[in-house]
């Protein structure tokens, strides 16, 4: 089992790094903005956490982030 997990590590580690940094960045972005193109803070936090593999952050940045 141990060896088996080690076999997956080269895939899992970078995936986790990319996804979690994206997730972290998105959450910080949501918390630091008070207004959104649509939806509310709570809604976007839920969406981001539910779709944390990258669909959540993606939806937020396409649909929720305020235009600059």
């Amino acid at each position: 089992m141990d060896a088996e997990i080690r076999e997956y590590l080269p895939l899992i580690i970078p995936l986790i790094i990319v996804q979690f940094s994206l997730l972290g960045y998105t959450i910080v972005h949501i918390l630091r903005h008070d207004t959104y193109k649509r939806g509310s803070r709570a809604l976007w936090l839920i969406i981001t956490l539910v779709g944390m593999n990258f669909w959540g952050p993606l939806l937020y940045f396409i649909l929720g982030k305020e235009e600059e």
Partner: protein
Amino acid sequence: MKGFTAFFSKEVRELIRTKRLMILAAVFIVVGIMNPAIAKLTPKIIEMEAETFDSMGMTVGEVKVTAMDCWTQFIKNIPMALIVLLIMMSGAYTSEYAKGTLIPLLTKGLSRSAVVLSKFFVMLTVWSAGLWLCFGITYFYSGYYWDNSAVKELPFAAFGWWLFGVLMISCIVFFSSFAGSAGQVMLGTGAAYFAMTMIGMYKKAAEYLPSRLCDCASLYKGELEPSDYFKAAVITAAVSLVLVAAALPLTNRRQL
């Protein structure tokens, strides 16, 4: 030319500051890693589902994963990354027309063609960099776990997808020259794709259609040679060129 370079660097800055570049990079990297990951996990998933299959009276033999499975994932997932890119870029022109942000720049002598072309080249650059980044990551893992040489014509297949993406981006450029909103641009681009699929039902047309370029599976298995894609590739490139060229006079005539 000075207008083009100035506006091009503005576009790059916009991509970075509006976080779009970061998101797209993340999408292409994640897809690049997901391709081998899904392929690698397939036997595990089937193992877990084996009981249900058993109860249905089906027996599942041992599944052997190869590089082919990984690259099948690649052509399954790259459209998703392309769609994300198209959605993100669909409003690149129309939002500027609607908000009037171009007016001060145009009255300073910036030509509309410079605007159209620099946005087109930015999208082209992002798509090229993203696709080959995704390809590179998948290629690395696939080589690490399996044997890439078992799959034929890998770079050419990716090139086919790249060219298809260029056509889709050209569609955005074309529809943006007269559409009023990002939604309309996406609708037009979607309709163009739908029309292509419809014509593709007619078997004789298939080898001339841009959608032929997406048929990488036959290429991987060696059923088709790169030369079989030649007609489709030339037509795709020509149509892209015509679409972008047509967008220039259309944009010049557009009431801003």
